[in-house]
């Protein structure tokens, strides 16, 4: 069957009423958490994992993907109206978007963000559908050493290529890897680092860890900032509709943002932020109105917003075809697949095509829902921002612990939540990135298995890791991604990299 037929079949599956319902819940929740500061798509999916344990796999995964897409839409609203990005992929949107809102052009800014997200999401999801089968074919020739090399590349890019410091990124990653050792070794059945505690035999729960690191750590960090001045919400004045000139200036930016964002999401480069920065820089250079940049240029909103949605779709390419998460949200979605005993990768396309194609097709539908949710209903989402801080964060903690208690109502698990919440808080204070811990925790055991298989085949000869051409290329790219930023930073050129710091999403 061709991709087109698979996609049509997927659409049929996605149009089932229950799946439509899950998609609607997903995009609604996603928009909500995108709007709210302090809680992002990664945390939300982590919170929902235990709750969805008893639902069917296709439905829950459709919901998770909806949350991911929704988070990308919702973040722009906060950036534009509040100048506080709701999630990290919307930082650039705040630059021009908030200026537009202050100049009374908040409506068109929101509209170009929403329509741009729609256009980008649509094109990128179709690109995902048509590229995925080719990567699946390529992945079938991958052996353990190629997979190991791929994971090393993902480790390097997620932890150290971007951000403030190679040292702190790598430290975060190795903390995650060390934590991933806890529990029964999957190849020999030996206990490692569980110290006789029965709760630890199964390893550290990814969901507990994600909730502790993101939700609890962030809440503690915000609490520690004390009473800050209240943020000013810009009212949406004037029409939300874009003028002909706005359309004319936006559409090229949308397409360029999509072209920039999709490959960056698809490469193991960690997060949607990078694409948004590149898109912003591109628009600034190409604009016929460079003087408007910094004062509310509509291209500066249209491009980055398209880029962040396109990279959300791009992230799903390695996740679905290789089982390789390249962002924190994707890492937790991988945990979601594992919860149902599914391992994303080339085999999943063969054994469970209905689920994979249903998921991809539902993204097209989710995109349409998001356009409706975000344009006419934007006023509703803005109201969320008026929730007083005490109730908002107390509520976030209630839901954070609810997920953990629902998965495993034990005092031990709540203790882990507290301990790792404090660890995450301290890490934030010292400017250690959080996402590498989660990626290390989830990918660590997979990488170890592939490594040990490769070494068992070669009878312990380490050089075998470098002798396959594909593995050698991947490891060389990883080495460059590790060393190049060190050199750039040493020569005082690190500012651009630290601006691209990959954080939560």
């Amino acid at each position: 069957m061709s991709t087109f037929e698979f996609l049509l079949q997927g659409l049929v599956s996605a149009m089932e009423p229950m799946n439509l319902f899950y998609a609607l819940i997903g995009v609604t929740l996603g928009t909500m958490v995108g709007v709210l500061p302090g809680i992002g798509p990664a945390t939300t999916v982590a919170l929902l994992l235990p709750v969805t344990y008893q639902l069917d796999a296709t439905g829950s995964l459709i919901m998770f993907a909806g949350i991911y897409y929704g988070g990308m839409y919702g973040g722009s609203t906060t950036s534009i109206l509040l100048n506080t990005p709701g999630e990290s992929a919307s930082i650039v949107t705040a630059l021009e978007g908030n200026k537009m809102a202050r100049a009374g052009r908040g409506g068109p800014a929101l509209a170009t963000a929403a329509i741009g997200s729609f256009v980008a999401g649509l094109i990128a999801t179709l690109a995902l559908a048509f590229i995925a089968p080719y990567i699946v074919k390529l992945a079938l020739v991958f052996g353990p050493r190629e997979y190991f090399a791929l994971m090393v590349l993902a480790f390097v890019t997620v932890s150290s290529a971007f951000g403030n410091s190679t040292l702190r990124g790598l430290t975060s990653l190795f903390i995650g890897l060390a934590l991933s050792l806890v529990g029964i070794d999957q190849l020999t059945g030996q206990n490692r680092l569980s110290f006789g505690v029965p709760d630890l035999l199964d390893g550290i729960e990814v969901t507990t860890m994600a909730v502790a690191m993101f939700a609890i750590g962030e809440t503690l960090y915000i609490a520690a900032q004390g009473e800050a001045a209240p943020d000013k919400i810009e009212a949406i004045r004037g029409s939300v509709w874009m003028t002909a000139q706005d359309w004319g200036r936006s559409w090229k930016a949308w397409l360029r943002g999509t072209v920039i964002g999709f490959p960056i999401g698809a490469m193991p480069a960690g997060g949607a932020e990078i694409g948004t920065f590149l898109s912003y820089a591109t628009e600034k250079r190409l604009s016929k109105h460079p003087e408007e940049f910094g004062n509310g240029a509509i291209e500066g909103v249209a491009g980055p917003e398209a880029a962040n949605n396109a990279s959300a779709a791009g992230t799903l390419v390695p996740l679905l075809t290789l089982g390789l998460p390249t962002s924190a949200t994707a890492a937790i979605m991988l945990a979601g697949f594992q919860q149902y005993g599914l391992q994303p990768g080339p085999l999943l396309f063969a054994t469970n095509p209905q689920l994979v194609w249903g998921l991809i097709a539902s993204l097209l539908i989710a995109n349409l829902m998001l356009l409706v949710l975000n344009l006419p209903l934007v006023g509703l989402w803005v109201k969320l921002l008026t929730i007083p801080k005490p109730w908002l964060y107390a509520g976030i903690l209630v839901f954070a612990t609810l997920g953990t208690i629902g998965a495993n109502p034990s005092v031990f698990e709540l203790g882990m939540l507290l301990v790792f919440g404090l660890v995450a808080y301290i890490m934030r204070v010292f400017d250690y990135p959080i996402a590498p811990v989660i990626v290390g925790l989830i990918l660590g055991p997979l990488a170890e298995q592939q490594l040990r298989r490769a070494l068992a085949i070669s009878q312990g000869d380490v050089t075998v890791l470098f002798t396959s051409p594909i593995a050698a290329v991947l490891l060389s790219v990883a080495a460059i991604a590790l060393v190049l930023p060190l050199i750039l930073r040493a020569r005082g050129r690190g500012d651009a990299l630290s601006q691209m710091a990959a954080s939560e999403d």
Partner: protein
Amino acid sequence: MSLDNNKTSTEQRRPDWAALVIAAILVAVAAVIFLDVDRLRDMGGYSQVGPATVPNWIAFALIGLAIWTVFAAFRRDFPAREKQEFGPVAWVVAGLLAQMILIRIAGFSIATGTLFGLAAAGFGARRLWISIPIGIVVCLAIWWLFAGVLQLSLPAGPLEHLIQ
């Protein structure tokens, strides 16, 4: 990467003590890994690659990162830290501790409602006699929805038994 240019020479020579503590913690974690997998040393089998191999590599890497951190501490490479207020943090931690202690005895709603109240206090809503009861009522509704309707296993206490 502090942008502070007017440091005196004495300040520059003083190490960043907090960073040194972090380095010590990394070494401690590495030591725990070495000690724990020591008993798995001989399980490598024919290829000499066993359950202890990767933990040892990770522990070596942690020690390497600790040494790097020590250098960074002496060169004061860590960014300037913002002032932290510990009062609000203590409130939130107290809330999480209270929930941990109460969850088995008093059930989901009372434990989580207390967490709600104490956490809200950390963010400035100090009237606990209002916020804790509100929290308990909200949590009871959540319990009813998630445990009753969605079949999630949330521990029941006296309040939950009343509405069951």
